[in-house]
Each structure stands twice: as C-alpha cells, then as structure tokens.
C-alpha cells in the first residue's frame, strides 16, 4: 500500500467514524458521567432550586428506602419468571418447530407475532383483557363455578399483579427466544443428528447429548438478552399497572421508580443514583458475555 493511499485512508477513516463518535459522546459518554455527577447532588430540575452537593446521601437514602428494595425485588422476580419460563418455552417450541411438523409455519408465525407489536400497546390491551368482567380466565371461573377465580382481578391484587404483568411479557417475548433457538438449530449440521440417529439414540438422548451442548452459545445469548431486558422493563409495567403517580409498590421496578423520582417527584439526584445502580447491574451481562466468548473460543478449538 502506498504512503499516499494510506494517508488518504487515514483521513477518510476519521471522517467515516466522526458522526457515530460524535453522537456516541453526546448521548452515551456525557450522560453516563453526568448521571454519576448528578447523583451526588440534591436538585429539583432546571426550573427549581439550585443544585446542592449532598455527597452520598442519595445512595444511603436509597439503601434505607423500602420502596427501592421492593422495586429491585420485583425486577428479580421478573427475571426469575423470564429466565425459567421464557427460556424453556422458547427452547421447547424451537425444538418442536425445527423438525417441521405439519403446519410449522403457522405455529412459528403465531408465537413470533407478538414480538413485532409495541410493548406499550400490548400492555394497554392486556390491562383491558384482565378486567374481571371481561377476562376469559374469570369467564372460566364462572363456568366451572369457582367463585374465587371468577371474581379475582389478577392485575389489581397486589399479590398477583407482578406475575400478571409477567405473563404478558412472556407472551410478548417468548417468540424471540424461540426464533434465536431455531436459528441456532439450523446452524447445527444435519450430520450431527443423523449420526446420533444411526447410533440408536432416542429423541431424548439426542436432545440431552447433542442438541443442548451444541446450543450453549444460543442459551448464553438468550440469557444475556433476558437479563438486559428484565432490568430495563418499563413500558409494559407503566401502562399496565400504574396510576397517575406511577406504579404502586406491588409492581414498581427500578426503571419505573427512576422515572417517578425524576419526572413526578422531581428528585433528579435520587433518580440519578438509581441510574448509577442500574449501570452497575448492567455490567453483569457484560461479564457473562466475556465468559461466552471463551465458550466460543473453546468451540473453535
């Protein structure tokens, strides 16, 4: 490569990345540092009082705030629900549909369809479906004569509300997990299954000793997706289980609590402290990803 060409490449290289870098600095780098900065202040926003430095008070305040802990707990419940049911259902659907039984396109498209719909609209729709007067679940209760089932409002009962929302989220997202598993299954060479069959392996044995080990990277990708998604859930809970001032304790999660603190009670410092906490949690998937890359390298070797 000539020196002139190399120089021209260098210059245009910077030109090519400049817009992306500029936007990134403006909307990622700056906000991250600014969140950390704001979390050390008491501030009620631009129109309010001037900033007042409070040190770590926002953080210690959060640690003794039971609403914050309940929100975190709901996030963890949410994650538990998804990591078990979404992952296993998605996997089962993928394994069944991958074998192309009669009508597989119908099954695949029906399970994936919710993934393309706006989460906010999904939430509004299910909020109406859960109405005890209309819900098919309550209808079922009336038919078989179970009074408790006929009368219960799963969304209004604080004991069940977070699970009621979770079911909706599972409905919305399982198709994505399934599609990723199907893509993973298609990447496995058919000879693998063929040789397992010739060796006389049963379907279960093939699944256990061939499919699942080979799909390990896909499991990891799905796990990271679910982990990131579950700690970022906002739209669904906000539209399904919130009143004017935000979701009650039973359904509050970190992101909705952050939103309430920032835009309803106007405590930008506290909101920023929650944001920093979310940033720290977000490093967990990064660590998992690093592990996965090691798995990939092992697979290559």
């Amino acid at each position, binding site marked *: 490569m000539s020196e002139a060409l190399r120089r021209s490449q260098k210059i245009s290289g910077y030109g090519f990345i400049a817009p992306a870098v500029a936007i990134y600095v403006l909307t990622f780098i700056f906000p991250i540092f600014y969140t950390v900065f704001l979390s050390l202040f008491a501030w009620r926003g631009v129109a309010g009082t001037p900033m007042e430095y409070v040190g770590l008070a926002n953080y210690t305040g959060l640690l003794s705030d039971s609403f914050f802990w309940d929100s975190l707990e709901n996030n963890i419940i949410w994650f538990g629900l998804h990591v078990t049911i979404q992952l296993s259902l998605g996997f089962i659907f993928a394994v069944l549909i991958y074998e192309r039984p009669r009508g597989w396109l119908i099954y695949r498209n029906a399970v994936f369809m919710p993934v393309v719909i*706006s989460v906010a609209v999904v939430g509004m729709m299910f909020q109406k479906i859960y109405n005890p007067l*209309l819900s*098919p679940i309550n209808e079922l209760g009336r038919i078989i004569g179970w009074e408790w089932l006929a009368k219960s409002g799963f969304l209004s009962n604080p004991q069940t509300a977070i699970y009621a929302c979770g079911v909706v989220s599972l*409905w919305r997202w399982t198709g994505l997990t399934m599609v990723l598993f199907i893509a993973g299954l298609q990447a496995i060479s058919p000879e693998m299954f063929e040789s397992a069959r010739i060796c006389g392996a049963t379907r279960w044995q093939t699944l256990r000793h061939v499919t699942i080990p080979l799909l390990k990277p*896909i499991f990891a990708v799905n796990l990271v997706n679910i982990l990131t998604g579950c700690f970022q859930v906002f739209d669904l809970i906000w539209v399904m289980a919130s009143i004017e001032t935000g979701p009650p304790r039973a359904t509050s999660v970190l992101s909705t609590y952050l*939103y309430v603190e920032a835009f309803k009670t106007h405590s930008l410092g506290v909101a920023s402290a929650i944001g920093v906490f979310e940033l720290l949690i977000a490093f967990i998937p990064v660590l998992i990803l690093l592990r996965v890359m090691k798995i990939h390298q092992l697979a290559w070797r």
Partner: protein
Amino acid sequence: MRVKITRNTLIRLLTEYPFLWLATLLGIFPLYWLISNSLKTEAALFANPLAPPSWPVVTGNWLNAWAGGPVNTPLIRPLLNSIGLTFSAVALILIISSAAGYAFSRFQIYGGNLIFSFIIMGLSVPIHATLVPLVVLYNFIGILDTYFALLLTFVAVNLPFSVLLMRAYFVSIPEEIAESARIDGASEVRTFWSIMLPVARPGLITMAIMNFLFVWNDFLYSYTLVSSREFWTLPRAVYAFVGVYGLFSFTSLLAGMAIAVAPTLIIYFIFSKQLISGVAAGALKG
C-alpha cells in the same frame, strides 16, 4: 418395529400437536380479542367478550378512535409522525453506522479498536440510566419537545448495536472488492458508497428491520422527550386515550389500540420471513 413407529407417532400426535396448537391459540387470542371486540357495540362486548362480532360489524369505534375521541387528537398526525420518524431514524442509522462499521473494519485508525470497544460498551448501558441527563442536555441545547430530540435519541440508542453488526458484516466481505475499486481510481467515499454498500445489502436489511421494530414501537422516549401533542407517536397518542377512559367508550379505546397495532401486523404478514430471519441474524451477531 412397525408397532414402535406407530406408537411413537401416536404419542407425538397426542402430545406435540395439541401443545403446538395451544401455543398458536394463545399467541393469536389476545389480538383476536382486541380486533373482534373493537368491531362490536359496548353492550355486545360485555355480553360476551369471546364471541365474534355480529355482521355487519360496528365501524363507529374505529372512526371514533381515528377522529381522536375526547382527547381531540386525530390519529392521522401521530401516524404520520411515527412513519416519518421511523423512516428518517432508520435511514440515518443505516448511513452513520455503516460508515463507521466500514471504517472500523478497513481503515487504520489511531486507537480504532479502543474507540470501537467503547462504542460496543454502549450495548450494556440501560436506557433509563441516561434518561435524566438526556432530558437536561436536550433542554440545554433547546431541542427538548421537538422531533430532533426523538430522532437523535433513536439514532443514538441503536448505534452501538448497528455499528457492531455492520462492522461484522464488512469484515466478512473480501478486501479484493474494495481494492479493485481503488485501482480504478475511486475515492474512499465513492468506494464505500457505490461498491461496498450495495455488497452489504443483506446486512443493511437486517439492520433496518431491527431498527424499524425498535423505533416504531418506542413508547418511553415519546412519553418523556416530547410533551406537545403535535410530536406524539402512535403508541403515545393511544396511551392518551387510556387516560381519559370514562369519557371514551371501551370499544373505541380498543379500536384505538387496534389502529396502533395494525401497521405492524400488516408489515408482519407481508414480510414475516424476512423479519424472522433478520431478527435472528441481528440478535445472534449482536
């Protein structure tokens, strides 16, 4: 042997198919519920929410929702906002991230790898963690409550993923293709625009699909960054209907949601194959 096969087939017929059909039913049911009930009178809805609408269907709910009902926000403006924002955001992301992805894959940039990994780290930044600073920033530069606030944020949020995807795509294209263009005396920009971009079309389509879904379905940002009705997107406008429930018939509310869902469903029915493979490719590469 023969007995065994039939027994296996029987087991599959009795377990797998009912399971798959149940899943299909559960996948479709909520949308059936929404659309069929939006075509009924309120009385018919409360009489039996599961029954299909009687013929002729009630179109008044859809017209009522389309006209904006009691919130007085006809849905035409939010629909056009959604379309316009989605198209411009996706176009911008395509250009910006493919240029950056190309540069990261080909050019000697001082600290290029470091900059690239910094941008990739953005993938793990929770979108709420940067929300407060963004509002303060946008307020400071005077774009809060404008289209620019939404556009810039949509581009930004999808940037790390898109750059990663495009870089991976350009890495897989043989260097000789760009080389031959350079020998013909094409400039770097020209090589990129008229040689590399067309070659990278499948990658661009994957990325466009992923970004389309994100931008079109966004609720958080149009709820936070804009407050004036003129900038509302479709999901945001329909959410306003929920707020005034009581002034608005239940069935009209459902019709509003159906209107918000309809465009994505139509696109899904036409492009389901591309959508599914695009989403899978995008998520697995990213």
